[in-house]
């Protein structure tokens, strides 16, 4: 896929995004049209959001607005107010007005300040830069950024540390670390995201930071797995109460294999109405399945007999080639979106499309945090999406 097509996919997703204010959406549409038609436009971006708060208010603000005003009043240029306060103006070449206003800013500001807040861009050549600016203005770029990594725990995880963590777990309140969000149906050109099922996922890193603050759980993978089982059992114990079970809807529960054979799971199962059982999907990661294929095969048989659905939690396209989901007995595939997934149009993307279930209601693109993921997902046949961006769109719809 060419860079242009990639941009277009992002643009399409942006234009349809209910997140966008009308100006941001119109600007995205304008960028898309210049990309599609090849018509050239010049653009001036005033990044007011990059200014210190003091300079964004009062006297300073009035000066900046006064300098920008000619672009608002002229018929030759079009202005866009982005939600984060940034201003954009677009004019057809030779764009004399744009050049005058830019000169005015450059004369008024020191060189460093000007470089920080003024950008002069050419469309369609720099469409990608503009789209990135729109994403940033919509708060999507910051959503996409990974949270800052916590300071790395120094010590190697040991069985002694595991015992300590299990004691701390017994007293810890996990409810603040249990994330609940919805997988939603989202069709190209369709309306607001339609919630389809609820996913309850523990913030494992957050729990570890609380109950295992000095050790790196990744330094001993089998102990991490044992700790994960203990955490899963705590979550199940919390769910195995009439009031908690009563609040369950169609859900996806990520669990370790061992937890599905625990006494806590048996209690949860006994309380769950039969009709709800068929609407519960238990999700196993590929790593978990391969850590103990015998235990997986046994758990799969047990869960299916009880009418639970099974989901495969995959983080890489190649995982689905190694574990063909239907042959392995999975009803659903939950693929986590990342930049590492194959670009549209590549042989890898075609191989992934072949490995995905045939039905769109049996696969979900998860961890969607930017419109490009939705655009990619639609092309790959996904109609179900989950993640921070979907959650935001669902709540604002």
């Amino acid at each position, binding site marked *: 896929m060419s860079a242009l097509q990639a941009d277009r996919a992002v643009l399409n997703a942006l234009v349809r995004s209910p997140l966008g204010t009308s100006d941001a959406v119109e600007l995205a549409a304008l960028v898309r049209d210049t990309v599609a038609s090849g018509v050239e436009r010049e653009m001036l971006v005033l990044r007011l959001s990059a200014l210190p708060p003091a300079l964004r208010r009062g006297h300073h603000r009035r000066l900046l607005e006064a300098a920008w005003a000619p672009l608002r009043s002229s018929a030759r240029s079009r202005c866009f107010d982005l939600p984060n306060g940034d201003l954009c103006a677009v004019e057809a070449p030779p764009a004399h007005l744009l050049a005058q206003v830019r000169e005015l800013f450059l004369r008024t500001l020191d060189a460093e300040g000007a470089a920080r807040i003024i950008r002069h861009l050419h469309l369609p050549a720099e469409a990608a830069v503009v789209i990135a600016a729109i994403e940033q203005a919509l708060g999507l770029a910051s959503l996409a950024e990974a949270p800052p990594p916590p300071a790395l725990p120094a010590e190697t995880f040991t069985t002694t540390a595991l015992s300590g963590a299990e004691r701390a777990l017994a007293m810890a309140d996990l409810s603040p670390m249990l994330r609940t969000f919805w997988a939603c149906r989202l069709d190209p050109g369709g309306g607001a995201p339609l919630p389809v099922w609820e996913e309850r996922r523990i913030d494992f890193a957050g729990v570890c930071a609380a109950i295992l603050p000095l050790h790196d759980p990744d330094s001993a993978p089998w102990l991490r797995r044992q700790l994960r089982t203990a955490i899963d059992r705590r979550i199940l114990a919390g769910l195995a109460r009439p009031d908690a079970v009563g609040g369950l809807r169609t859900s996806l529960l990520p669990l370790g294999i061992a937890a599905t054979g625990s006494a806590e799971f048996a209690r949860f199962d006994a309380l769950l109405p039969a009709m709800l059982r068929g609407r519960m999907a238990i999700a196993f990661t*590929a*790593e*978990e399945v*391969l850590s103990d294929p*015998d235990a997986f095969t046994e758990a799969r048989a047990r869960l299916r007999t009880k009418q639970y659905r099974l989901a495969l939690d995959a983080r890489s396209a190649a995982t689905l080639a*190694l574990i063909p989901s239907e042959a*392995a007995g999975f009803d659903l595939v939950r693929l986590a979106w990342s930049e590492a997934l194959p670009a549209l149009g590549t042989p890898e993307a075609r191989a992934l499309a072949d490995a995905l279930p045939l039905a769109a209601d049996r696969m979900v693109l998860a961890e969607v945090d930017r419109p490009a993921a939705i655009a990619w997902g639609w092309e790959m046949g996904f109609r179900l999406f989950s993640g921070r961006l979907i959650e935001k769109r669902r709540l604002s719809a």
Partner: protein
Amino acid sequence: MPTPSAATTVRLAPPASLERRAGLLPLGRLVAGRPLVRLVPGAPPGMAFLHLQPDMAAMAAALGGAAPGDILRHLAEGTALRLLDALGEAEGAALPAQLRAAAVDKAPLLIDLPPRALAAGAVASSGWVASLPLHSAADPEAFATLAIAARRQGWGIALRGLTATSLAWLHPGAIAPDWFILDWSEALPDNALRSLDPERILLTGCDTDAALDWGLVRNIRIFGGAALDAWAARPGGDA
């Protein structure tokens, strides 16, 4: 193997962690070395690899308690890392007696290792193959990256944990180690073998002649299991 005197003092410090207790056990008790034998029709059998594995049953017995499987597997990883350190010592000085000869003779070794041993940059001697657990291939792209780095350090790469159970739904053709270690059973599905080159298969768990015949018919050439242990243990040694 003489017990180091330091062990006595350490043992007095309560409470000794499981890792420490396991670390004090002699390696010779915790590591099994079994032959993998090349069988080619019309030629005498030859030693292909000495397969070194942490012995989980021996670990459980030595610790004298019913530890959960994940804890035993954690301790087995510790044993494998200890073994790797010992193999790195000159003349096999730190190795148990039964493995020292193999180290001095520079026999090809197949060593069960955790992926983190390779991620840490361990260097192989000539003819060493790292046998990695099935879950290390959960992301085949990450597995391929790890394998490339390990080969640069001299390692061959084998994937273990392929059984009738996992091969019933796994597509091993999606990964490309140098060797696939298959655990023989009568239920081993033929269609799973179709995507594999028989010359890259190490068929373990061959306890009967029927197992050997099963493999030979499918052009597999390297075998391990009780049927081969007897061959290696025969008077005259390992050919």
